[in-house]
């Protein structure tokens, strides 16, 4: 008995976005202002102070803007926090961002 043959289509969907270039990287962290973004999970409250200490020891004049300045980047407030993030970074003259923690 010959079984029927089927020509089938893909169950996915076309991409609706374009890939973009990253923002330009910094030449050095010396003298730069680094913003910390945190989702209030996975021990960021312990790790960000360690990171601040390590970077300050390596790069003269580096300064930091704490995660509490920007709000929780995950959960119920995520959308609002991320919506206002560009303005928050700009108004505080943040040069680069470290975002954690994904676990």
């Amino acid at each position, binding site marked *: 008995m010959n*079984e*029927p*043959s*089927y*020509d*089938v*289509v*893909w*169950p*996915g*969907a*076309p*991409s*609706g*976005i*374009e*890939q*973009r270039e*990253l*923002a*330009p*990287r*910094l*030449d050095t*962290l010396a003298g730069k202002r680094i*913003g910390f*973004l945190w*989702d*209030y*999970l*996975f*021990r*960021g*409250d*312990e*790790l960000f102070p*360690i*990171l601040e200490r*390590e970077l300050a020891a*390596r790069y003269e004049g580096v300064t930091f803007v704490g995660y509490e300045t920007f709000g929780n*980047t*995950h*959960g*119920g407030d*995520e*959308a609002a*926090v991320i919506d206002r*993030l*560009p303005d928050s*970074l700009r108004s505080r003259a*943040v*040069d*680069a*961002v*470290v*975002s*954690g*923690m*994904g*676990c």
Partner: protein
Amino acid sequence: MARAAVASEAAGVPSVSIVCESFDGQAAATAKGHGFEQLPLAITVGHVDAQSASDMESNFVNHTVDAIVAGLTGASAARNGTNGRVARSDPAEGNERSLGPSTLDSASLNPAPYDTVASGSIDEINDAFAERGWSDGLPIVPPTVDRVERFLAGTGLDPLQSLGIARTTGRDMTVWSVATNAVMAGCEPRHLGVLLAAARILADPHYGAEHSGNTTGADALMILDGPNATALGFNSGVGALRDGVRANTSVGRWLRLYQRNVFGFTAAEHDKSTFGNSFRVVLCEDATALADIGWDPVSAEFGFGADDDVLTMARFNSGAIVGSAFGSTPDEIVPYLADGLARITGWDLGHLYGLGRMHYRPLLVLSPILARTCATSGWTKANLAEALFEHARIPAWRFEKLIGEWTNLAAGRPQLTDVVAAGDLPSQFAESDDPDRLVPIVSEPAKFVIAVAGDANRTNAYVFSHDGPHGDYTAAAVEQLSLD
């Protein structure tokens, strides 16, 4: 975490994201889905929650800080010649290396809707779909062009119409993709209105579909209300939460397939569910019982009338039976129902404070006879919710351990008295500082969601713990489509 970094990059501010080992694949997939596939990651050794403070610090300083610097300065690009797209400090090798895009190959596919992607017998098609990660492990109905077109016949819908963007993969949620997965799942064309409502919910930012692969593995439940649900073949009676009826089962299966194939919830991309659940069948409320006792359906809580056909979706972590409720008055059965709700609620309290803020909304599914026991005593749903609020309570010390010591979901392990003083929870959580005092499991009575379904005359209930903003209750009208 990655979404915040994406927002920074889009604003012209360079970023690096810290992720635990084995979370990099999901983070990279999220970055690609948001248009920044080169997003730098700095990976920690293992999982920080399983490390002593000193081990965590040592691992972080010795293996992650360099990757953070490299991500912000592009230093790894200079060293590795890979543009530093995903920098990782590998403790085994003691140096940074670059992770390629191999796990994202499936996400890079883009066949046109009508392209043939496989040909063969039904067994060969099923094998091909399983190998490519396009099926859920059960046999599928081969999605031929003819079958997909017939699924949409007479609706007047443009197959290429987009219902929104999948907030994980950046893919267009086309009508065609909805129908293709519906064919595969064994849905009937008359269920298209329900599927389109589900797709609109997935596209709604309030629902938070992007969280559907979170590690604790909650899964969505679709709750269907309205006068046409029964006519569409949905079961609201015996076995209301079990597979066995085509409408409930195939539509529930469709959701899992759609999340897999369009949202990328597979182990290779966005799914980090540690255990997960099997897909949930559609819970159809018993409209007749609700009308008889004068209670509104779940959909009424979200702005719809009893005459509207409505799909409501939320994600739930755990479920449990509240079996053999004994009593002829609501006062007799409420303590047991409340015990079930308190029993099912554990780490999820983080959605009340910690992960979320007053987002926790557990679901109570009452059998019709239990609902009638309340209604015949003159109780409304609101009365029942108020009684549950008073009875579904746990010791304050247990609440604090669940959000603090046992999970670390609330940074700083705060006491409830401090949380209330800060205005983040209502006063009922700090009526004293006695650690043995009983506190609620939701922020207000209205946070309990109550549905009515199941065997009409069995005195059982079912309770679900809720995943808060990781799948918040969202409702959409089910449009009645004209079909050929």
